[in-house]
């Protein structure tokens, strides 16, 4: 769930716009290079964007008796890195802010930062870190996607706590209150999201593993090993 329209004081709205802008600009630059030099990756880029679209439209009930939705940014982060993913996140957040009154235009900067930038950076870092070790590829993808989702809400909690520190206890009390509220709802959804993206990753390896090699996501030997395991 994103921060709603008008729910951040103007100064914080401006602050998060300024923080997010360089990521978006660099992401667009990276995307241009990718499209120009690696045209065959274009369908995969569309699929990564489509995943953010589908998963962030599914408001699911959770064990706490409230609803929230996954973010779907993990796949983009793993395949294309956090900068390109921030552009994909921006597109979805714009759609939801304009047509659905979900999130908002004034809080767009803050929401892009949590969902499009901070989450994907964590997912991407976890993926890169774990592929160097011996952990199973699908477990790695699961961890990256689930923690990207979860970290998005940690950042949302930080953003809200910075703007609304508690009367007594200030930032920390406020952060704990927001984080516990989001975490209860989000942990089960993050697990589901991780599972779905890990499964999709298996199919991408099966149909177009060589593009993953080209994007430097997996080594050629890892692709052929995973293909043999799935055959």
């Amino acid at each position: 769930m994103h921060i709603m329209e008008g729910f951040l004081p103007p100064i914080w709205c401006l602050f998060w716009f300024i923080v997010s802008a360089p990521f978006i600009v660099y992401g667009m630059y990276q995307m241009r290079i990718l499209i120009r030099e690696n045209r065959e990756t274009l369908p995969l880029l569309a699929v990564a964007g489509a995943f953010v679209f589908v998963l962030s439209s599914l408001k699911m009930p959770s064990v706490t008796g409230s609803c929230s939705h996954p973010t779907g940014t993990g796949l983009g982060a793993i395949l294309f890195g956090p900068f390109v993913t921030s552009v994909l996140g921006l597109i979805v957040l714009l759609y939801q802010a304009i047509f659905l009154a979900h999130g908002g235009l004034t809080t767009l900067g803050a929401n892009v930062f949590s969902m499009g930038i901070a989450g994907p950076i964590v997912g991407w870092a976890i993926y890169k870190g774990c592929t160097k070790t011996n952990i199973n590829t699908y477990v790695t993808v699961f961890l990256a996607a689930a923690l990207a989702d979860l970290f998005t809400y940690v950042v949302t909690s930080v953003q809200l706590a910075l703007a609304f520190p508690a009367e007594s206890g200030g930032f920390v009390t406020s952060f704990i209150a927001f984080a516990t509220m989001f975490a209860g709802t989000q942990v089960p959804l993050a697990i589901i999201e991780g599972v779905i993206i890990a499964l999709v990753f298996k199919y991408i390896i099966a149909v177009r593993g060589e593009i993953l090699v080209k994007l430097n996501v997996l080594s050629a030997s890892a692709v052929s090993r995973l293909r043999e395991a799935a055959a």
Partner: protein
Amino acid sequence: MKYQAEITAILIILAFAAMIVVVINSGSHEWAGSDDQAEDVIDQMTGETYEPWASPLYEPPSGEIESLFFSLQAALGAIVIGFFFGYYYRGRQINP
């Protein structure tokens, strides 16, 4: 095992569904969005009612129209995913 990933995924999703069934049958819940809950926490933390200083330019006139836009969003994404997976899969069959 060939379908190990699929079986694991189905089991985890079933476990999630079972938890939801338990929660539904244990007392009443609002099933509100967590962004609405955030509003309540803001009021609790600051001890006053927060007045949003901006309102959305356009708001779906009813829950039905809102769900239309959400379904449209999911459908658009699903078309793209299905199209390209089909394209890749067929390409692989013709040209392995």
